[in-house]
């Protein structure tokens, strides 16, 4: 428990604390005692390592082109993927923001400033931290990612530079993230191996969705309803036709992705 919360009354703190420790210790001893009694069949000298875990699943062959696979799989989730050359990122970001009608966009610390040179949208910083209400009043969030997973079409945010705290990619209705090919790994095991579990991690696979009503998928209930991904194509020359207004996604869009925002 932190004690910074002096702005809020904490009724009965000290008696409750004493009480809590008493009861907690009782519960702890009781539960652990019951577990040990229940495991009477497990030899006393057995260690966890004595129970083998076959990891044959790790021997998978990564597909040849994980960047293309990532783009396809993200597209399956009704996110929009736009590939562009490194020098076209700023134009692509600007075009996407304009297309989504974004006027105010949150930009976390560490987001590459060179990606912001072409947009007219108001750039909002999260310093000092925005209140939830202020965040609710912006249209969009721009981020980088920590890792992306090709097989599942997932981007992973770890609150590192360019990603901001978790609320930034949650409250606004539009999330645009820039992914570099070297951030893409083939599968879930490789992704987890690259991540630091001490950071807050969010795995995002497409915009938020529900299937609770007759299993009909509806995009967006509480999280962002639109997810745009700018995939930086490394080592290829800029495509001169990289669009200003009619960017062509690598994967066909599903009909209700654009304009779903209300």
């Amino acid at each position, binding site marked *: 428990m932190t004690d910074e919360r002096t702005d*809020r009354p904490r009724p009965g703190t000290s008696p409750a604390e004493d009480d809590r420790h008493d009861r*907690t210790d009782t519960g702890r001893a009781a539960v652990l005692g019951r577990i040990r009694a229940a495991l009477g069949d497990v030899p006393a000298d057995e260690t966890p390592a004595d129970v083998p875990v076959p990891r*044959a699943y790790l021997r998978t062959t990564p597909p040849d082109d994980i960047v293309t696979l990532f783009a396809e799989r993200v597209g399956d989730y009704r996110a929009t993927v736009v590939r562009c050359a490194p020098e076209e990122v700023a134009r692509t970001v600007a075009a996407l923001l304009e297309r989504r009608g974004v006027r105010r966009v949150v930009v976390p610390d560490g987001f590459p400033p060179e990606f912001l040179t072409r947009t007219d949208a108001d750039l909002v910083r999260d310093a000092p931290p925005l209140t939830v209400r202020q965040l609710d009043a912006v249209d969009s969030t721009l981020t980088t990612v920590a890792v992306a997973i090709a097989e599942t079409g997932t981007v992973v945010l770890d609150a590192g530079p360019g990603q901001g705290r*978790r609320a930034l990619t949650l409250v606004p209705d539009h999330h645009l993230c820039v992914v570099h090919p070297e951030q893409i790994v083939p599968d879930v095991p490789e992704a987890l191996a690259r991540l630091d579990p001490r*950071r807050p991690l969010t795995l*995002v696979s497409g915009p*938020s969705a529900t299937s*609770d009503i007759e299993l009909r998928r509806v995009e967006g209930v509480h999280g962002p309803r639109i997810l745009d991904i700018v995939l930086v194509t490394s080592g290829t020359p800029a495509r001169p036709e990289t669009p200003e207004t009619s960017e062509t996604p690598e994967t066909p869009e599903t009909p209700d992705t654009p304009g779903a925002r209300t």
Partner: protein
Amino acid sequence: MSRGSGGGLDANDGRVWLGTPAFPEAARTALADTQLRHNLRHATTTIRAKRLDATGEVPHWEELREAGAAIKRRTARHLDHYLEQLERSVTEAGGTVHWAGDAAEANRIVARLVTATGAREVVKVKSMATQEIGLNEALGAAGITAYETDLAELIVQLGEDRPSHILVPAIHRNRAEIRDVFAARMGDWGRAAPQDLDDDPKALAEAARLHLREKFLTAEVAISGANFAAADTGTVAVVESEGNGRMCLTLPRTLITVMGIEKVVPRFADLEVFLQLLPRSSTGERMNPYTSLWTGVTPGDGPQDFHLVLLDNGRTDVLKDTVGRQTLACIRCSACLNVCPVYERTGGHAYGSVYPGPIGAVLTPQLVGVDKAPSLPFASTLCGACYDACPVKIDIPEVLVHLRARVVEADRDRRALPTPEALAMAAASAVLDSPTLLGIAQRAAAAGGRLTTRGGRIRRLPGPLRRWSATRDTPPPARETFRTWWRENRERR
């Protein structure tokens, strides 16, 4: 069916709700509900097809299942070790760990933690563990209102209904029913539904978004379950789709997570197995839209006060049974429900528990004691589809048969006199032991069979067999026994 029933949660020590009639009776009522059967058939066939596509895409799916089962086996056999390790990791990361022996203790801990913040309202992420302990009702008794924020749970809560499926709790409702619930009840809990609300799923989801938005933006305290928790790092995982989970896990100052003790896994890296198995098995997706992983508290990001409540509530009884122990491997994906011919026809309410379907038929009797749910191990055809579908290879049919034996033993121990079934079995054993008696019995059966057969089937048997035969058609005994036929056709040649 239990629609609309408030239900007494403490009827069985608050362990698992078993408020309805026993399964056979509840199933009979459910079978007569054609709307329910229509909704369920549509839902289960849809998810079945999606799941097969998603699992078929992974070449090493069977190896993943093996690994998942093995990790869970390792965890269960050393559960005390891993829970103590988890407690250390979470504490070092700035969280507080609490241990709850039963539902009442867990509810007391949570109510006390909420009260200490001064909040009177909490937002909740869909969680089986908190349903199991009846947390919402307990908080209500302590003057705290709990708002369910998963769309399906919202439908259930507003409709004063019971969840009927692990993954999609309102699967028994169609869009017209949901529209009516929203229109009638949303105003009682917060922002009312729009006047002109229609039954388009998009419009219904939008109504839920608007209704809950205010709660998310103002909530001080959130309560969640946990899909997994890694002992080595103290990282807790919640898997979801709608973003309501992220809202609850991120915006409030205080987060309280209630987790069954079986949800711990040894290492953070083990999540690589379950994050592949769970989405594909449950919704048939390669990955669910959102997965949140957090370790204690992070200054400046998310809740600054994190409590993890470790819940036993009968799980150590399950652990004690060396056959039943494998049930604790369940990751609540609901694949077994969607392939079960019994679930597809009766729906989840008939099981009388927050855990319906095949996994409920084995888990519930073990959590509450077989004497309190004696019909559930029989709520199955033993077809084995659940075992094939289970991503962590729980041999549900094996556990069902094991529990049936325990029900029969418990029943026999309680009775002074043997049951008609036991008498019939004893008689059958005597007859089958003696060729002479068998011959007499077969001739008598052929004669008796002709008297009771109508249209090539025996529908009702006389006497003590009446009840048994009420739900079964019996083929008539052969007019001629095999032995007679053999004598006529083979020995005489």
